[in-house]
């Protein structure tokens, strides 16, 4: 078996174990309702995490995604609600804007050699600041499209529903997998994460790829923003704070290495589900105070990661030892 597939299998195993544990503890847990809800609730996270996966595989990081989501929501609310722009016009517009924003960050990263962490941190400040400048109000969106979106959900057996935004997320994951493993761009992303200098020597168009990676990430953050705006039917400049860290955690739990070069989009999807599972566990429990909630999130996060590391070490013993 290929060595790098092991972390993925471990992640899936850890997720299944966690789900099983929850189902045993809570009677209502194992239902399509909870499944549908988990997919819907984490749809925006899933969308943005796919973009983040590419960034991290390339050896970078994107801290701006949360702010970009907020900016998207505020922009859509203003455009659709206040200025009566058709959503079908506003969506492509905001996707173009966010993608352009990412391209700008990518260009700064490549041409001025400013570390991605810092470039995107500034990007995070700027996007959030732009939200405030646009408006500090939170604006509901009452366009018919938003009102009736829930009608298009697909019924699952049982009480569950597969909502439109869950379908969007699943589609993004699928497309992300294809891009990662079946396109030249995908190969270039892995190459850059493996070793940027080598990749350049091997003829990877580093400038273009860098810009495209951050374009993809910001663009998907824009799409996640659209999803979030469907999810809440509103735009608020304080939305999605801290989402960048949730996203990074999901990607890393999904088996992607922050040092770059290794990872799977599908792993990220499982990572998102694990994040969702942790949250669902906590809401199902319902007895935790604010601080115990935080501690529990930390402990569960640690539990999943430690389990993963432990299994990885065990499986490494099984195969040929690769020098430390």
């Amino acid at each position, binding site marked *: 078996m290929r060595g790098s597939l092991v972390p993925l299998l471990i992640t899936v195993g850890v997720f299944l174990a966690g789900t099983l544990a929850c189902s045993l503890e809570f009677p209502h847990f194992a239902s399509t309702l909870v499944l549908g809800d988990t997919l819907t609730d984490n749809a925006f996270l899933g969308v943005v995490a796919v973009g983040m996966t590419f960034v991290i595989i390339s050896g970078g990081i994107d801290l701006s995604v949360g702010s970009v989501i907020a900016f998207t929501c505020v922009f859509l609310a203003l455009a659709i609600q206040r200025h009566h722009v058709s959503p079908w016009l506003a969506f492509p517009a905001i996707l173009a804007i966010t993608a352009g924003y990412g391209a700008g960050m990518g260009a700064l990263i490549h041409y001025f050699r400013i570390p991605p962490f810092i470039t995107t941190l500034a990007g995070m400040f700027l996007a959030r600041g732009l939200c405030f400048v646009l408006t500090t109000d939170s604006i509901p969106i009452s366009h018919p499209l938003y009102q009736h979106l829930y009608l298009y959900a697909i019924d699952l057996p049982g009480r569950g529903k597969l909502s439109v935004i869950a379908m969007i997320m699943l589609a993004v994951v699928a497309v992300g997998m294809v891009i990662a493993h079946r396109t030249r761009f995908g*190969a270039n992303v892995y190459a850059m994460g493996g070793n940027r200098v*080598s990749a350049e020597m091997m*003829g990877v168009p580093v400038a273009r790829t860098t810009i495209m990676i951050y374009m993809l990430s910001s663009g998907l953050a824009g799409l996640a923003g659209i999803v979030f705006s469907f999810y809440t039917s509103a735009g608020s400049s304080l939305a999605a704070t801290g989402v960048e860290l949730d996203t990074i955690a999901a990607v890393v739990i999904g088996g992607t290495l922050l040092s770059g070069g290794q990872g799977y989009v599908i792993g990220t999807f499982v990572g998102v589900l694990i994040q969702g599972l942790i949250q669902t566990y906590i809401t199902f429990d319902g007895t935790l105070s604010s601080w115990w909630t935080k501690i529990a999130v930390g402990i569960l996060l640690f539990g999943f990661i430690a389990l993963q590391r432990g299994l990885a070490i065990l499986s490494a013993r099984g195969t040929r030892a690769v020098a430390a």
Partner: protein
Amino acid sequence: MQVPERKPLLSIEGLTKTYPGVRALDAVDLHLYAGEVHALLGENGAGKSTLIKVLTGLTGRDSGRFVLDGQEISPANVIQATALGIGTVYQEVNLLGNMSVADNLFLGRQPMRLGFVDKRRMRQQAAQIVAKYGLKIDVAAPLGQLSVAVQQIIAIARAVDLSARVLILDEPTASLDTQEVALLFDVMRQLRERGMAIVFVTHFLDQVYAISDRITVLRNGRRVAERLTRELPRIDLVQMMLGHELSETALHRHKPENEAGETLVRFEKYGKRRYMAPFDLSVRRGEIVGVAGLLGSGRTETAKLVFGIERAETGSGRGLVSIDGKPTHIRSPREAIRRGFGYCPEERKTEGIVGSLSVRENIILALQARRGWLRRMPRRQTDEIAARYIRMLDIRTPDAERAIQFLSGGNQQKALLARWLVTEPRFLILDEPTRGIDVGAHAEIIRLIERLCADGLSLLVISSELDEITAYADRVVILRDRAHVAELSGSDVTTSKIMTTIAA
């Protein structure tokens, strides 16, 4: 071979390139002809790799021009160079360990189907290419799991596949053994027949005379001469490279009959499952033990076990070490170093140098680590040590504070050797110590090794150069398929005997 004066395929004119503090290239001219192998020679730090990097657009230049087929070219990056038909293997293997062999071979030019990468076809084609070079490997496996030598071959395969008109090979044979070299030369000859111009950088003069048609010699960034190989005797070549004569004796030493001392270290049933079959090995004081074997036979593995990087399995009479007859254990490099061991790894870039630290810091690192973090060596002392070894090993660097990553490959290797020499080890393990080192320095290092052994240092030397091994080893351990299969000593230590034992 008919080589009439004709128009060069690619000519480099007046190429100049300065780095802070160094003029790496100074008005260098070079002419490549179609259907020729052009050897680019010079000491460590002469500017060979720099010339290649500038030519392929990896770094900029101060002045000079390139003319390809009558057209002035100016590739700004590797992609453009490749588009012009120039394929390159750079000195340090620059492939992607995280990706599969097939990905590495086809990065940027994957076979496509319906707009998507056709992985099946890519693997098939990769398997064909790899088979051509005699490798039996899974092309879907990550490249990083393979040895440097295999990676080197993959890099060559990729460049050969890419280049249409010019192929540049910067020390491609450094980590290959005789068989692979022969294979590579076959490929180069085929390409030459097809009218390709090939640049070949090496420090092995035998190889220069075996394959090249024309020679350009660089010294200190200047071109000293461009000659047809058959018109340039070896002696003259060496003199051109070094700027002075090198006595023949320096190249071929007579091994003094070494008075074997007492056993210094002894390993018994030393091994690790799925890594290396248990072996017995003992080294006496002042003795040089050579390790020979084919690619992947487990030479590096032996070194890593002995140095404690990989932990040997112990228990029931297995995995015993004794030093000076006293049983002990070696579970980490730190323990090994504390017991007076040293190890110059084969993979210089990833396991040897600490790139962004200075030459001085790299030289004193192991000594300081052994002293511990509290007993810092005073700056003056480290300055002195660095200066002494830079002089002694003739490390070409503008100053000791230069980051080591900016040194030429051979000079990095010398600094690594210095790192261990300053610890005054009792037992030094050298994995391909002369890889990438020029003839002059090669002789220097061998002399140094001998002197150290005369003073009682024991050595375990891994080398693909059978000539080198036979030149100084008292004993040679032969490896095959990750097991020690034979040991030769005394008059048995000859190239032919080693070869037949390996092949047996």
